[in-house]
């Protein structure tokens, strides 16, 4: 969630509430410190209150997860929940540290404290990433697409690129064999066919089920006849471009670096008839798209990766907190 000047309306009430809770309970805690001559522990009135409030807040924080899963439920906008999650979550750490009286205690409470710190820090880290990465993605990945569709778009691009090279270089006898060993085209067409062959139902009406997204259309002029002397293009495509389009950066291809890719494509053009240059440009664009999609995948990983830490640890925290409450009440 982006914290900027616009956040006042939905965040301010939560900020005020969080600060009020922190200030009120903090002041009480300090007063008790001076009255008792030492930091009050968890079993004192103020310590217990801090523990109860902290526990309730952790449970509220945890409820964001099921809230986000139940998207059609009308129990408050998720952004309001998230704003509360951020600001109330931030004060759970000081409240529960006050609750502990600045002592780690036994092994369970020590683990709880560590988990709490880790959860709050991972959440804060996620919040920081959310301030930075969406903007970076906007600026650095103009070819951004839906993350889950990157693979499919990559497959379509590879097929288009191959057709373009075929049209420019003309077909060769062993071309199919060279393209087929990895089963690439076979997989693409099989996937489609598998879905349409032998359906276990009859559909009545028009069968267009996906929306049409309109936008800038890449138009490449395809030569009407093969361009003589374009064999280097074919070799380059199968040796360099296709592996890169398929595996991206993990192919260790020089095409993964923009400057090197530009130089390579420039060199390739010098070996080819000018009629084949639009094809080279199209291949360069396909590689650029692959680079951008790799970059998008990396940024996407960072943007959502922290949840792999935050969420499991939150679950563990809630589970251990319940055990802690049970143990505390039982042995009080």
């Amino acid at each position, binding site marked *: *969630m*982006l914290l900027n000047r*616009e956040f006042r309306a*939905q965040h301010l009430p939560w900020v005020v509430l969080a600060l009020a809770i922190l200030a009120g309970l903090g002041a009480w805690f300090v007063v008790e410190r001076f009255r008792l001559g030492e930091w009050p522990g968890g079993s004192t009135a103020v310590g217990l209150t801090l523990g109860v409030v902290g526990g309730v807040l952790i449970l509220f924080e945890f409820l964001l997860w099921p809230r*986000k899963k*139940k*998207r*059609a*439920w*009308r*129990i408050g*906008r*998720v*952004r309001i*929940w*998230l704003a509360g999650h951020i600001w109330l979550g931030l004060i759970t750490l000081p409240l529960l540290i006050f609750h502990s009286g600045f002592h780690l205690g036994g092994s369970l409470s020590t683990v709880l404290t560590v988990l709490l710190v880790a959860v709050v820090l991972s959440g804060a880290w996620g919040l920081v990433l*959310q301030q930075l*990465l*969406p*903007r970076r*993605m*906007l600026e650095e990945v103009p070819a951004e*697409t*839906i*993350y*889950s569709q990157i693979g499919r778009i990559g497959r379509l691009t590879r097929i288009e690129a191959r057709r373009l090279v075929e049209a420019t270089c003309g077909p060769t006898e062993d071309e199919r064999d060279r393209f087929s060993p990895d089963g690439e085209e076979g997989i693409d067409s099989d996937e489609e066919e598998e879905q349409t062959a*032998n*359906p*276990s*139902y*009859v*559909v*009545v*009406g*028009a*069968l*267009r*089920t*996906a*929306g*049409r*997204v*309109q*936008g800038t259309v890449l138009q490449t002029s395809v030569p009407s006849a093969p361009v003589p002397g374009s064999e280097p293009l074919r070799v380059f495509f199968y040796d360099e471009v296709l592996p890169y389009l398929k595996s991206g950066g993990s192919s260790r291809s020089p095409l993964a670096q923009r400057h090197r890719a530009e130089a390579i494509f420039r060199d390739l053009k010098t070996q080819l008839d000018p009629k084949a240059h639009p094809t080279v440009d199209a291949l360069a664009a396909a590689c650029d798209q692959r680079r951008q999609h790799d970059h998008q995948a990396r940024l*996407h990983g960072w*943007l*959502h990766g922290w949840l792999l830490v935050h969420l499991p640890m939150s679950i563990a925290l809630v589970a251990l907190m319940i055990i802690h409450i049970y143990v505390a009440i039982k042995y009080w």
Partner: protein
Amino acid sequence: MSSANGNGAPPVSLTIDGRKVSVPAGTTIYDAATRAFVKQAGDRNPIPILCHREHMTPVAVCRVCTVDVSVNGRQEFRLAPACQREVAEGMEVRTHETSDRVRNAVSMLTELLLADYPDPEAARAARLTKQGQSRGEGNDELIELAERLGVENPRFSRSRREKPIDESSMVIAVDHNACILCDRCIRACNDIRNNHVIGRTGKGYKTRIAFDLDDPMGDSSCVACGECMISCPTGALLSKHHVLSRPPAGTVPAEELAAHPLFTGVSKAFLDFNEGAVVRKHFRKGDVICREGDYDATAYYIEDGEVEIFISSPFKHVKNHRGAGSWNPFALVRNSLLAGRGEDRRDEEMDTEFISIDAPVVLRYDKPVATMGPGAIFGEMACMSSYPRSATVVAQTDCTLLEVGRNVLYILQRGKFSKAQLDERYRQNALDNHLRGATVFARMVKNEDEFKKLVEFLRPRVDLVRVNNGEVIFRQGDPADAYYLIRIGFVKVSQERPGGEFVLTYFGPGKSFGEIGLMGHIPEIRDLAPPGIRTATCTALDHVDLVKIKGEDFRLLLEQFPSVQKSFIDYAITILKQNERMLRQVNEDSLGDFLQQGLMNAQSVLVLDLEKCTRCDECTKACADSHGGVTRLIREGLRFDRFLVASSCRSCLDPYCMVGCPVNSIRRRGSLEIIIEDWCIGCGKCAENCPYGNINMHPFPTGQNVFDEELRRKVPVLQQKATTCDLCRELDGQPSCVYACPHDAAHRMKGSDLAREIGIVATPPPVR
């Protein structure tokens, strides 16, 4: 050309060759003569024409239609071109048959034209032997005119400059020597068919017609529709007969068609050229003639036997509901299913009892089956405007049908005699069905006796008018003079607003318009709309056939049928209030670039702020969760600055998706969002029409099973239905995509508000 727009002025009386005739003001002398002298096929207009045809805009370049005109007893000094000169009260017209002055002038013109024409006898003989077609047997209008006037070999010598003959086209040969530059082919190509291939090139004696940028006809963008060939008065454009491959089986020969009553008055040359465009088909009882949703550009004429026409798709809409056994008061949606009117009644749902289809019958909502017999024509809209078939037709008995192609149907609807015949068939056989399907007459239908009286009242009072694609039927502010029912095609209803045109709605077959301006004498309407004035502009979007009821007849109708009057008042008040509500919602800004993307047109566009959006896809998932697992938005689309306009229904000001629905099952609510009615046949036309890809087709279980021969077991039948963003109105009116966004990145806004956000337009100063 018949015009939809009359001016309501009193008729004009004049005399042509001593025969009195009374015609509406604005009629040309030639059209008045047609009305006075041509009563049946074979009758001849005393005024000859070469550069003009009834369906063309007159240009008066050949002047063979010149007539002698006297107004109020004073003879005019100059002869007037009858094709262009409008009639006047008390006018006396003398044609070449009664005036020597005119006869001399026309004879001289004809002689001059013949002087530049190849040797008439040789040309005719050459054409007869070379082409073996009927064009030379009397269809050469110049030769015919010369014979009519007794003009023999011209006294003037022929130009020695030989012009080329273009044989590059596979179907039409162009002999520039025979061309008299009447421009009929040019207007036929450009005005009638909108192909814009033929023009003129060169100057003086070198002037000739040309194709595209003076390309040979065969290399040009000519689509070989044949309109130029049938328009040419001299045979300069000739059919290369029998060049094409064998005509399809069942083709009815041109000779037989020419004798067929349906084709009365259609040129035999045209029927020859279009050999194969009319095919006789025999169907056995139970055979499927056509299926709903199919695209075939033909119409059918029933010669013999009976057919059954029906919509087989279930009359149900997509309903999102909680599902059985739901305990959770917060869970608004569990699944999407098909539900009929009995199971789920939606707000603002129309009380439609009859569904208009592309046939001379209507279908009942509760029993969508009807029968048609000999003489009926169906599928005209699918044929003329390439819309999907609106219903399935099955032979009820062994029957014989003529399958008619677009070219031929077009000529049938245009020809004076064939059109008159079709119109009479409509009056006698289809008018009552058409009125049943019209919303405003719904109340009358319940009282059969009164409805019959209504049909009998209207039968002699209706005129059928044809309006071409793009033609304005009437404009906002024009005096109201008639009421219209749409028989075929679609009409755009729009208003001029300070920010540009605002489309109020699109009307399809079975709908009517033009009543508000005629109801100014009724106090309830006078309070809401200016009396006697059109409140909106109506424009034809394709080939539109209208049933026109004159203003005075309409008022008489209201007077004689109080229940119809009440129905019209209720309807007009609803429409006027709905329009007012919609207009209030419309932001009156407009911007060129933004308009190009269709965004200024948007009333509720889903905008994602990409600086805030973490690409978590919660919006898409929420949409799917709210609509039974089927998302109605895709998080991809146009980007403006940092905003992504997601692919989701924008509730456009100009809802193009509504055009072309063969069963009129898509419309806009007063609150602007699109609603799909129960009788959607799943043809996908709306999804195809939406320029933004925001209407999707999804299959829903119908509860029926059919036996699959290949699988050797019963399989469920899924019905495709169109789905689009309903702004979650069926839930609680808060779009789930926005409600579920955790990062405050998803917003619904007007296109003009988005324009302000990205700084295309300045934010208006706050009102103090």
